[in-house]
């Protein structure tokens, strides 16, 4: 199970505990790259090391994410795509239906790997 030290900086909070990664706040140009890149690298390594088959990404409290932030999530997903089939794990994005932009943004991420990337409203 995941247990990564939370990161809180410039309006974003990143947390990975048990089987859930939580991204909340707003991801902007001033905080996107460094924080997200490092965080997702660690999450990916942890999932591999612990042989997890499924992880949830809770974005229900994510108010906004810019394209630089999306790039870092895509980088994580592409790492998953590069793994051997038997080692791959499922990422389930948990969205907030009341935050309307999430529907299209997360849908486009699902298209990067329809077998292993899922989304659900909670």
């Amino acid at each position, binding site marked *: 199970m995941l247990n990564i030290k939370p990161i809180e900086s410039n309006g974003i909070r990143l947390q990975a505990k048990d089987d859930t990664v939580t991204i909340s706040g707003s991801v902007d*140009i001033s905080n996107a*790259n460094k924080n997200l890149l490092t965080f997702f690298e660690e999450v990916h390594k942890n999932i591999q090391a612990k042989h997890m088959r499924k992880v949830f990404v809770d974005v229900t409290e994510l108010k906004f994410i810019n*394209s630089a932030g*999306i790039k870092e999530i*895509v980088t994580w997903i*592409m790492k998953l795509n590069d793994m051997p089939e038997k080692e791959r794990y499922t990422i389930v994005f948990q969205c907030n239906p009341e935050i*309307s*932009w999430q529907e*299209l943004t997360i849908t486009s*991420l699902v298209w990067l790997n329809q077998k292993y990337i899922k989304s659900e409203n909670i």
Partner: protein
Amino acid sequence: MLEQVTKQKGFLDITFSPFWEFVPFTRNYIYKIASRYLQCDKKKNKVVLTVSELLENGIKYSEKPGVRLCIKNFSCTPLEVSVFNYACKPRVEKLFQTLSEMATANALEYYIKKLKESVNTKAGQANIGLARINFEAGPKISAQYMDNDLLEVKAMFYFEEER
């Protein structure tokens, strides 16, 4: 000049220095104004997403200080979002190439292609902003490059009557 522009219904003009921290403030400000004129949450978010991504591009690729955001027709159609910044010719040529590709491609397919390519872009750049606007917000996007190296990128929203 002031009289001419303020005759338009719902006109807003902000010029600021290329300061990243101003982007979220401006986005939140525009969201509040959009909430006054657009009832639909999806439409508000489309405008706000466009403002945010165009401003980030304006700041990121500006050759000189100064980025200007201009919104026209908040209360009628088409609602126009323009961002002005100074840009070099090679950058502008790349922009026009992107706009040309987007015009003929399927919006989702083009966005997915740019998402995949973004992994290989250098730190601080994703090169997906315009494709994201095109897919998620769907305005008509155009650009104009003026003699003084001033670039205008414009997004026009043709929202239906129910706003």
